[in-house]
């Protein structure tokens, strides 16, 4: 028992390592100090160690060395060599989904940063309240990040280091050894914790490790972490990503709130939150399926190419489900899903996780499979779009699609796996060009919307693109344009597959679409993705959430009250998808989480930092 005590104490000291990247040495010094001082506010924590780095190159090399010891990266945007977002992407490429916060005195970069998957954006000069948010974010990332690490077993780097950390060895000396490891005190101590301090459990199941240690050490920080608020839980992108990951891991059919909650391991989330979210999610999938089955229009898919250039992390949903699902919760976190399924990480069970029928992929041409998985690592949508794309390119689309998707169209479950769809998803794909359209549109759309908030982003894009499904005419246009401008990925490039993190060889040249909407998008987007203005009406129909409020978190608080009515590409502005009407109609039971409205005022709890972080750094 004394033995256990030792471990318990050890685990109660949380060490957080933050890497700050900025070309301004003055700022670096100040920021380091401020961050390190944060620990004094929370006695039960910790140590915050700040690793200050002057440029991106140094950041990357530091990461190479200290990969698993860095919990959070805070980077400046404007830097001479590689700007903050490029750094972020590079980090994701090489190291997976590490949380990255972008800072800048230029507040215009907020949207772009969030879109590219940054965990948050903080305007400079940094206020004390923002600093607290960073701290909380670091805490959360620390906890969640560790559990994520444990599920990532197909990433080269992490694969090597993780087993050491998570290995639970009953021998005492081994435990002592791991204790000594400078940089992995947390996972070790956590694993100790998981055994409840008695004997070290040899249970290597990841879930256990994820759950208990985090739960244990999480309690220490409960005061500072997000308190469990039953009322206003905001399903941010990241949270939703985690949710999807959980579902994928568990399997949609086997997904029960309890298991999901365990997997997600987020302290402030209750079973009820998860339950209602799961319910909504299921409904959403059903709707998508219904909707897609209505559409019988097949579009030649050159438009799909458009998806490639837009590696938006804002579209996790749609990427996963290949539907016009709102990509509300687009975050880079979504990419994690790929990590967790190394074997069939070919985007297959993104959503549904390991199912008994991993099948569909086997039917696919290998190249596609590979591609999709590689995309996953740092790009959303890679998974689904690639396969789709290939299909679309073929004239005999049905056949191609079918084989690609899965043996039988009827087996929606399988298709859904392939596409990350749920049961009904398949029919959409097989039956109609609807999904293609949506896919296409998404690709084009997202890049298009400089104005929209990150969360609403995807949905808006939906709106825009969705209509294309119903309007054949614009399509040839778009396709033709797309075709010219977007190079079709060479499917033979299998090298992508091997290095999951190595997205460089993306089939599409995404470099154009990386950051500046303003600059690069015009060239690409305007010709290809001009969608008719009445897209949104179609979208409205599609999204008629009559009984549901699948609105997404609107980070643009200033513009709307959490709905997706904010600035969107001009052509869609006039007919903004009016969520509110739908919303009004819904008769949700009270326990449905209403995440559509993120009024800051409503968020009484200031610890809901994720939300406040994204909802306007005031």
């Amino acid at each position: 028992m004394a033995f256990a005590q030792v471990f318990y104490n050890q685990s109660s000291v949380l060490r957080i390592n933050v890497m700050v990247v900025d070309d301004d040495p003055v700022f670096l010094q100040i920021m380091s100090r401020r961050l390190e001082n944060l620990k004094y506010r929370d006695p039960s924590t910790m140590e915050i160690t700040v690793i200050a780095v002057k440029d991106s190159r140094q950041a990357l090399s530091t990461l190479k060395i200290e990969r698993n010891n860095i919990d959070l990266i805070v980077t400046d945007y404007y830097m001479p060599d590689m700007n903050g977002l490029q750094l972020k992407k590079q980090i994701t490429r090489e190291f997976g989904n590490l949380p990255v916060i972008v800072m800048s005195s230029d507040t215009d970069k907020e949207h772009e940063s969030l879109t590219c998957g940054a965990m948050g954006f903080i305007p400079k000069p940094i206020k004390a309240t923002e600093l607290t948010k960073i701290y909380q974010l670091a805490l959360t990332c620390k906890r969640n990040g560790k559990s994520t690490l444990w599920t990532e077993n197909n990433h080269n780097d992490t694969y090597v280091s993780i087993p050491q950390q998570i290995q639970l060895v009953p021998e005492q000396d081994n435990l002592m050894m791991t204790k000594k490891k400078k940089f992995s005190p947390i996972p070790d101590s956590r694993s100790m914790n998981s055994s409840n301090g008695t004997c070290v459990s040899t249970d290597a199941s990841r879930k256990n490790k994820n759950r208990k240690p985090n739960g244990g050490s999480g309690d220490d920080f409960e005061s500072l972490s997000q308190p469990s608020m039953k009322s206003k839980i905001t399903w941010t992108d990241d949270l939703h990503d985690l949710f999807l990951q959980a579902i994928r891991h568990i399997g949609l059919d086997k997904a029960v709130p309890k298991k999901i909650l365990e997997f997600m391991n987020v302290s402030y989330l209750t079973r009820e939150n998860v339950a209602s979210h799961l319910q909504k999610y299921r409904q959403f999938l059903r709707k998508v399926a219904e909707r897609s089955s209505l559409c019988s229009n097949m579009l030649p898919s050159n438009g799909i190419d458009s998806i490639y250039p837009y590696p938006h992390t804002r579209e996790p949903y749609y990427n996963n489900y290949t539907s016009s699902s709102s990509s509300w919760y687009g975050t880079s976190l979504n990419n994690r899903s790929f990590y967790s399924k190394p074997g069939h990480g070919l985007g297959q069970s993104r959503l549904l996780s390991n199912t008994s029928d991993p099948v569909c992929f086997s039917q696919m041409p290998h190249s596609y499979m590979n591609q999709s998985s590689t995309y996953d690592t740092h790009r959303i949508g890679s998974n689904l779009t690639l396969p789709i794309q290939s299909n679309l390119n073929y004239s005999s689309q049905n056949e191609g699609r079918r084989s690609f998707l899965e043996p039988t169209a009827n087996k929606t479950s399988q298709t859904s796996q392939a596409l990350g769809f749920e049961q009904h998803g398949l029919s959409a794909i097989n039956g109609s060009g609807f999904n293609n359209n949506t896919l296409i549109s998404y690709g084009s759309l997202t890049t298009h919307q400089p104005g929209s908030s990150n969360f609403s982003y995807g949905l808006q894009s939906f709106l825009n693109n969705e209509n294309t499904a119903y309007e054949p005419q614009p399509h040839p246009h778009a396709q033709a344009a797309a075709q010219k401008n977007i190079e079709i990925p060479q499917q033979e490039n299998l090298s992508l597959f091997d290095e999951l993190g190595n997205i460089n060889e993306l089939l599409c040249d995404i470099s154009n679409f990386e950051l500046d909407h303003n600059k690069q998008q015009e060239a690409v987007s305007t010709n290809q993705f001009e969608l008719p203005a009445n897209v949104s009406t179609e979208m409205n129909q599609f999204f008629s959430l009559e009984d549901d409020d699948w609105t997404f978190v609107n980070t643009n608080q200033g513009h709307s009250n959490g709905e997706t009515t904010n600035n969107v590409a001009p052509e869609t502005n006039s007919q903004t998808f009016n969520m509110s009407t739908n919303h009004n109609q819904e008769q949700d039971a009270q326990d449905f989480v209403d995440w559509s409205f993120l009024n800051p005022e409503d968020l009484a709890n200031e610890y809901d930092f994720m939300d406040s972080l994204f909802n306007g750094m005031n």
Partner: protein
Amino acid sequence: MDALVAQLQMQYRNYTVSLYQQGFLDDQFTELKKLQDDASPDFVAEVLSLFFEDCVKLIGNMARALDQTGTVDFSQVGASVHQLKGSSSSVGAKRVKGLCITFKEYCEANNYEGCVRCLQQVDIEFKALQTKLQDMFNLEKQIIQAGGKVPQVDIN
């Protein structure tokens, strides 16, 4: 002794307040001071000397960029200005920061004369700030030498 300390402290307070009032410093500087404690008594001094070094370097960059015979690369000047703006804002050097904002506009407008003027002004400003802060630090030293503690100055 106490009288001396009290007097010095009073002087210090007044001087500091005047710096704020004259717009040399802003609340970021206050925040900066808060980061200093017994564990790191020279934190502010360190940061400020870093800042001044940075100023010299950046001003040098800007001067060089503007001094090009031929076409001036305003984006390069702008990049340095941006950096200086960032530093000055972190440190609380209000006037310098304000100047940088104007400077940046001139850069964006590719206004050569405007840029040169701003550069000269930035140079003057940061040197003035350096002098003032040096005086302030000297006062602090005197207070400590006289056996007193440096008072926390509340800026209303």
